């Protein structure tokens, strides 16, 4: 456990500033001048960034002082508390925490986010919904920061849902367009499927650990709390409950971070404005899944099964998305599939146990992918393309858009993994991790996963370099293919122009980041020579992130670096040959057309989902809708309302206007009311008054009572107005004897009517700790010779071997045997006769259980009486 440092108000303020910006712009933005709206939007994030830097500096200083697990926390308030089935009370605090992991993530979110806000000032300047846009964007920042800084799963989940909401709002930002609006809905639904997994994972974790705090869960995982066998349908026994929890959490990650099978929403999400694509769907939100895995890395690493699933899923996603990206023709579509593919790289890194490497890729990817998206936005802005830009109608833009071109090129180099750019370092580490798994593990499954990951990622890296440079060459080299066309035709603006400064500045900063951000992760070695791993990044991260140690063997390192370099060279080289200064899709001519079409149609996964999942759901919905119309509306709604109306008609027809009828009804009413008093009501109850049992009869006007306390047909009292009667009972009055059994611990109870025949007692549900030998007869009871007898039939009181086979219980008193209370009880019956003022008589009887200890007599007498009493 981390010990609580002093309250760091900055952590709260980091979140509150963007939130306040969202509220102000959302409520009053329409009445404020545009410049002020932009200022609030950018300013609030900038302040947040500065606060993040100061907080991070403090954290850095703490680490410098040698505090290994340095954290900053801020406890805001207790949100609510929860009672677990185990009885423990779990307080859920709104508490924020900055450690080395969330610190870096906060810097990425606020830093890159701030630049994208600045970019939006220029990019969105012509849009009518300017204040709405900034309000959503600020709300996203606040949610993302809650996600990152929350110290427990529920608080994180608030942010998790918040970013999902903002993503939905911003994808459907131009909601007048039906396609855009449905893209937003698709994103939301896919995310909700994942969120369901997160919730279940969360409940499993709190069930095992009894706390929602990340620190507690990780500590518990490290202590092996999760290594319990777990029965899970339909897989049978899974080796640890961690596997189950991690797989559910990972389902959430596949939704949020666009992995197979839930990645389908991300490419469609490009319907939103380009800054949104850059901020939410490339740099920050989509990496939340990777962040969650890193956050809970000590938990994930305990489950080999879950880790393998993650690695394989990540690799498959990286490959699948890369193939699709190779064939697409629109800038943002290509970048979107590239993002899905790169997220696959990150999860593959997580899956082979190199969380720090995966998160390092999150860090570098944020720079170059944001830069690429903003560059694409800059191109679209320049050529007045709305929605997306077809690269086959562009070309040669390096002359008109120098800044955009250079930053774009730098980012392409980075994502392709050219040495000494940021992408080189991060991608290299991922491949290294996969290689290391092959060499480290003895388990054949793990080795296979390692090989699969390594080969898959290398292929994906080749394709990454290829499609990025395909994009670059077709956009920026050759001749501009829309020259001479008007902007309202099929092409774009004939005279592209460079973007304003507010858009160029973020590009430059992000481009610089794309080159230099990687140096944080530069190994302290040069290949073939040195030995010192890990990097500064690795050192910094190990305080909050678990993971396997990086290999020391130079062979491993050389294999990984060699593969990465070769992949990069092959990819860029083939793109150079095929697309430099070209205007046609050369690749399409070289592969079979049907294969190319299949890949271009994104392997028709959307169509598959439509047929297999969405279609059946729609059919069920239609069916339910029909049932609602026919059954609920017609039978349950129309019919009763029709009945009510008809009854009403009938009733108002009774109102026939004839005054004789009215008078008649009046008289009938008097007689009816009178009839209610005609016969007396007989009712008797028993009540304990101190030690005596009293019989109480219902009161009434002028009632007289006659009592027969034991219901033997002879009245003991004459007619009187006394409605309370206290008879005395002897054993001869007993009607029945029954056995009352109760478990004082659980409060469950039963009673059994007893005769001379053996009656079976079902004591299992009372939690009786009696041990029964296999196949023996059940425990039975009967009346015998005035006593209640139990026959154990071989059952042994727990912990003993000398339990007698027959046990006799004294009557009227509780006897505790082991943890079950057994009381034989007796009942009597009382009768009262009631006469009212009209001379009418009614009778009532009631059988009552006598209070324990009421009968002082011998048990023998009881039995005789019962024998006689069975008349």
């Amino acid at each position, binding site marked *: 456990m981390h010990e609580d440092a002093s309250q760091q108000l900055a952590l709260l303020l980091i979140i509150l500033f963007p939130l306040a910006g969202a509220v102000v712009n959302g409520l009053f933005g329409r009445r404020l001048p545009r410049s002020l709206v932009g200022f609030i939007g950018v300013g609030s994030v900038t302040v947040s960034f500065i606060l993040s830097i100061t907080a991070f500096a403090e954290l850095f200083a703490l680490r410098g002082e040698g505090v290994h697990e340095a954290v900053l926390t801020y406890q805001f308030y207790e949100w609510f508390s929860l009672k677990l089935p185990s009885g423990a009370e779990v307080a859920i605090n709104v508490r924020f925490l900055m450690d080395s992991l969330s610190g870096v993530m906060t810097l990425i979110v606020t830093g890159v986010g701030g630049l994208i806000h600045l970019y939006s000032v220029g990019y969105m300047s012509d849009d009518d919904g300017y204040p709405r846009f900034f309000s959503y964007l600020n709300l996203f920042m606040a949610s993302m920061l809650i996600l990152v800084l929350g110290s427990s799963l529920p608080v994180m989940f608030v942010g998790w849902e918040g970013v999902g909401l903002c993503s939905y709002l911003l994808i459907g930002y131009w909601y007048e367009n039906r396609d855009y609006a449905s893209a937003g809905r698709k994103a939301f639904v896919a995310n909700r499927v994942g969120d369901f997994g997160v919730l279940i994972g969360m409940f499993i974790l709190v069930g095992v650990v009894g706390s929602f705090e990340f620190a507690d869960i990780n500590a518990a995982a490290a202590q092996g709390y999760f290594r319990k066998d777990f029965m899970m349908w339909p897989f049978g026994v899974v080796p640890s409950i961690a596997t189950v929890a991690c797989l559910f959490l990972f389902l959430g990650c596949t939704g949020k971070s666009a992995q197979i099978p839930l990645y389908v929403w991300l490419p469609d999400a490009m319907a939103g404005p380009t800054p949104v694509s850059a901020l939410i769907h490339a740099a920050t939100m989509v990496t939340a899944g990777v962040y969650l895995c890193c956050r809970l890395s000590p938990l994930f690493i305990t489950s080999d099964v879950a880790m393998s699933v993650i690695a394989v899923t990540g690799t498959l996603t990286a490959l699948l998305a890369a193939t699709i990206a190779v064939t697409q023709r629109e800038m943002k579509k290509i970048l979107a599939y590239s993002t899905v593919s790169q997220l696959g790289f990150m999860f593959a890194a997580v899956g082979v146990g190199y969380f720090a490497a995966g998160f390092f890729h999150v860090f570098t990817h944020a720079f170059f992918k944001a830069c690429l998206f903003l560059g694409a936005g800059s191109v679209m802005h320049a050529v007045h393309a709305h929605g997306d830009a077809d690269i086959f109608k562009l070309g040669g833009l390096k002359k008109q858009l120098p800044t955009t071109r250079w930053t774009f090129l730098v980012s392409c180099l980075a994502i392709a993994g050219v040495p000494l750019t940021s992408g080189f370092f991060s991608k290299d580490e991922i491949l290294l991790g996969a290689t290391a798994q092959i060499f480290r593990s003895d388990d054949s499954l793990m080795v296979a996963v390692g090989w699969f990951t390594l080969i898959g990622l290398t292929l994906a890296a080749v394709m990454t370099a290829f499609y990025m440079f395909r994009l670059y060459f077709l956009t920026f080299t050759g001749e501009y293919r829309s020259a001479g066309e008007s902007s309202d035709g099929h092409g774009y603006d004939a005279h592209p122009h460079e973007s304003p400064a507010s858009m160029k500045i973020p590009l430059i900063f992000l481009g610089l980041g794309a080159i230099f951000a990687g140096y944080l992760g530069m190994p302290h070695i040069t290949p073939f020579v040195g030995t010192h791993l890990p990097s500064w990044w690795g050192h910094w991260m190990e305080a909050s992130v678990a993971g396997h140690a990086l290999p020391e063997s130079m062979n491993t390192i050389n294999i990984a670096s060699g593969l990465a370099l070769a992949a990069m060279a092959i990819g860029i080289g083939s793109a150079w040959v095929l697309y430099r200064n070209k205007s046609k899709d050369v690749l399409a001519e070289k592969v079979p057309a049907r294969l190319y079409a299949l890949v271009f149609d994104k392997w028709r996964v959307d169509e598959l989902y439509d047929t297999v999942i969405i279609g059946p759901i729609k059919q069920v919905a239609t069916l339910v809708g029909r049932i609602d119309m026919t059954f609920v509306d017609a039978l349950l709604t129309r019919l009763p309302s029709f009945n009510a*109306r008809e009854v009403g008609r009938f009733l108002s027809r009774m109102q026939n206007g004839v005054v004789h009828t009215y008078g008649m009804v009046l008289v009938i009413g008097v007689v009816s009311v009178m009839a209610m008093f005609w016969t007396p009501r007989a009712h008797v109850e028993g009540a304990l008054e101190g030690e005596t049992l009293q019989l109480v009869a*219902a009161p009434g006007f002028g009632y007289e009572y006659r009592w027969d306390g034991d219901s033997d047909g002879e009245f003991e009292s004459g007619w009187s107005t006394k409605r309370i009667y206290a008879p005395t009972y002897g054993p001869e009055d007993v009607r029945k004897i029954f056995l009352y059994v109760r478990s004082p611990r659980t409060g469950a109870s039963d009673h059994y009517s007893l005769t001379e025949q053996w009656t079976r007692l079902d004591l299992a549900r009372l939690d009786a700790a009696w041990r029964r030998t296999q196949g023996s007869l059940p425990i039975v009871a009967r009346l015998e010779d005035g006593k209640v007898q139990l026959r154990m039939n071989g059952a042994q009181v727990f912990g003993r071997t000398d339990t007698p086979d027959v046990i006799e219980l004294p009557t009227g008193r509780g006897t505790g045997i082991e943890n079950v209370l057994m009381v034989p009880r007796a009942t009597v019956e009382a009768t009262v006769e009631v006469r009212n*003022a009209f001379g009418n008589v009614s009778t009532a009887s009631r059988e009552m259980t006598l209070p324990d200890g009421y009968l002082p007599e011998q048990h023998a007498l009881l039995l005789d009486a019962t024998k006689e009493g069975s008349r």
Partner: protein
Amino acid sequence: MITDRITSFLGVAPLLLLVAVGLSIMLIDAFSKDRSGLALTTAMSLFAAAAISGAIAVRGDLVAPAQITRYLAVDQLGLFFDVVICAGAGLSALLAGGYLKEHGLERGEFYVLLIFTAFGAMVLARAVDLLSIFLGLETMSLGAYALVAYRRTSARAVEGAVKYFLLGSFAAAILLFGSALLYGATGHTDLAGIRDAVGSGAADPVLTILALVMILVSLAFKVGAVPFHMWVPDSYEGAVTPVTTFMSVAVKAAAFAVLVRVLAGAFGDEVSMDLFTGWTPVIVILAVVTMAWGNLAALAQSSVKRMLAYSSVAHAGYVLVGLAATYELGPTAVSAVLYYVAAYTVSNVLAFGSLVLMGSKGKEAVSYEDLAGAGRRHPAAAAPFVVGVLSLLGMPPTAGFFGKYYVFSAAVQAGMTWLAVLGVLASAVGAYYYLKVIVYLFMREPAEDAPIAVPMRSYYVAAALLLSGYYVLRMGVTPGRYLDFAISAATTFLG
């Protein structure tokens, strides 16, 4: 001491004020042709009487606690009903001021009758003796018969009045018979003495039961509980709308006052109230039948005025639910009854007043068809109607909501959850015909070449609607002080 004399007379000051005003109007009307100020004078004097009663109730020390005669009580319960009756009558007078003038029916005797009927209602609400109960009842009823027949050229009005008179006389005879039997059984005519005699068992049981049944039935007739409600639709529909309003609020409130006084007072001992053998089961059955019948019959009406008449029957059922809970809860249940009566008074004035407002000379608004599209043509005139029916329906934040809430929650607390459930179901039926008003106002268009009712312009009606609308919302948003008044009335009454 002379001050004692003064303070004890202060207790009946509202009554004396009304008698004085009524007599003066009679005198003035004989000599003056100018009737323009009569409605205002009547309304203001009724409001003044309400204000005096309210002030006495708040300043309990202004008046000697003892009753000033053995026939009339000056207690919180009586004062509460003073306020309700005078407010209802005053608001009805305001409606009349607009309605009668618009339809050319204005004559002085209307206001005189209204004042004396209200006076009779107040006497009835304060009566603590069988004699004063009968006198109050007759004073009130005679005035009411005449008011129903006020538009004497209308056959329906006369028909309604005659039926009301015949049946009312019948009921009065039953009451008188019951009173005589009760006197015979107990030797007392004052309710306190009767209570002692019945409670101690000294009274002859057969006579007591006969008396209880007869008195109960005659009072159930007065509150319009099913099956003794037959006169309600005919006379409510025949009377001019301000009179209908007055009948449904002031006259009904007084009937409930005496019902509470007799049942919870004279027959308030444990045996008489018993859940199975006393009057409680009778009231429960009446409540169930009344709620069901009233609501279902209202459903079938095509005339809004007749619908409101049946709905007033249904509302009597809801009040009886509260009364049925008295056996278990005592003051809490009675206070729910009182609150309901007050809430119903303002809500009903608002609904009937809106109906008055929607028509004018030549074309009165009576049926749903008359209202078609009026809400879109005259949104300002339709607004109070909407608030009024929503309150009658029991929708928050209106007085009607809390009225139903207190009554049903009393039933639940008294262990009669099933009765509350029935009440809620009955209200759900009620939602249909109340919302139908809104549907017609805003979502229907009048039939081709149907005569269109044009809302009248009258400050009187507007004032009545504003006042009642204000209290409907006020009692729906901050019910506290009105409920406190009801609780203190119920608590002091039941001791």
